[in-house]
């Protein structure tokens, strides 16, 4: 890039990103770096804090009552799960899934066209669905404390249930990590330190009463991360 003005200081990319003047390709490049670069994340956060008083100073305005109703409706429609038929084959899912997880991992990555370079994971776990196909892919990159969870063909569970992901700690305690997404990809924070031999388990839970310390029923899947 040519220097527009000799006296102009070098751009503070995090500052410009937060301000909003980083656009187009420069913005995309920056966001790409931001995903994994924790130092850069902290810089962005520091800029957000510097400007935060400007947002804090804005007078609150009560939104119209419809707004909340519309939000609720959108959440309802996105959490429609009504294919209870397949639910009955849960046992099948459990038995086959546990055995096959690691065997089909490489195949799955190929079959579903998931580019390793694109996914940027170095350890993955394929969670089988009730059809003993890849339901979700859970991956970790580097030493980051985050799980990248991608829905491939999630198990269809009744409307009021969800698949809850658990992690086993060193001393055998269970901690809840989160809810496996129905579609798309999500990042989840790992509540305890992640090890190469960390075990993950999945249970089906009522969405209204998610357990915090142990599943309400049996685990339907369990597995560990494998290096790729």
């Amino acid at each position, binding site marked *: 890039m040519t220097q527009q003005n000799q006296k102009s200081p070098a751009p503070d990319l995090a500052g410009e990103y937060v301000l909003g003047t980083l656009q187009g390709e420069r913005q995309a490049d920056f966001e790409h770096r931001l995903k994994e670069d924790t130092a850069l994340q902290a810089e962005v956060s520091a800029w957000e804090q510097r*400007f935060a008083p400007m947002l804090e100073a804005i007078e609150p305005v009560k939104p119209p009552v419809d707004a909340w109703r519309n939000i609720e409706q959108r959440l309802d429609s996105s959490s429609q799960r009504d294919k209870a038929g397949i639910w009955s084959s849960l046992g099948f899912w459990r038995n086959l899934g546990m055995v096959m997880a690691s065997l089909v991992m490489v195949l799955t990555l190929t079959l579903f066209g998931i580019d390793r370079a694109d996914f940027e994971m170095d350890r993955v776990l394929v969670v089988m669905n009730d059809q003993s196909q890849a339901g979700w892919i859970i991956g970790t990159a580097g030493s980051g404390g985050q799980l990248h969870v991608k829905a491939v063909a999630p198990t269809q569970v009744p409307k009021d249930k969800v698949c809850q992901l658990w992690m086993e700690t060193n001393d055998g305690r269970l901690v809840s990590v989160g809810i496996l997404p129905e579609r798309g990809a999500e*990042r989840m924070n790992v509540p305890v330190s992640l090890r190469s031999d960390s075990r993950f388990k999945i249970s089906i839970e009522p969405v209204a009463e998610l357990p915090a310390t142990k599943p309400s029923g049996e685990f339907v899947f369990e597995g560990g991360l494998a290096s790729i």
Partner: protein
Amino acid sequence: MAVGEIDPKIANAARNEQLKALLAACTLKDRKAFAQLYEMTSSKLYGVILRILVRDTWAQDCLQEAYIKIWNSADSYRPYLAAPTTWMATIARNQALDLLRRRRREVQMAEPEKLLEASDSKTMPLERLQQSDEGRRLNDCLEQIKSQQRQVIALAYFKGLTHEELASQTGTPLGTAKTWIRRGLEQLKRCLEP
């Protein structure tokens, strides 16, 4: 302070702890927690969005988008990096700026002269910055930088203007607008250093 009065700082800290707990519950898809989170924060966020978008039909759509985003990305909230209200207000601001930029592109193509109808003189609510310690510090630092730099920073922050739009809005060459932004940010950062 009179007996029985609650120190606003303590009240604010307690409120932040409660918001953090509600966000944590949202990561587990707890709808009741989400409803409470909305109850506690929606006026704040709607104020932010309305400030940026001005039109309330846009602002209502945007508020929904912002809360859906908060619900879906509650697990990416890092309590050690930002206060919950800052995190949520940032999401609201980003959603509003995205919408504003989209609309501006549409308007720009249809009626170029209407490009910047909303760049009013109230762009930066500086007077209300006096209400908190952080706000007073930011205000002091903003007052130290040149008024053109302050203006381009405010237009970028509240109206999402690009370098090119800032240059045309202020009638300056692109390079100058860019330099104002860089200098302004550099001076603000230095001034706000602890």
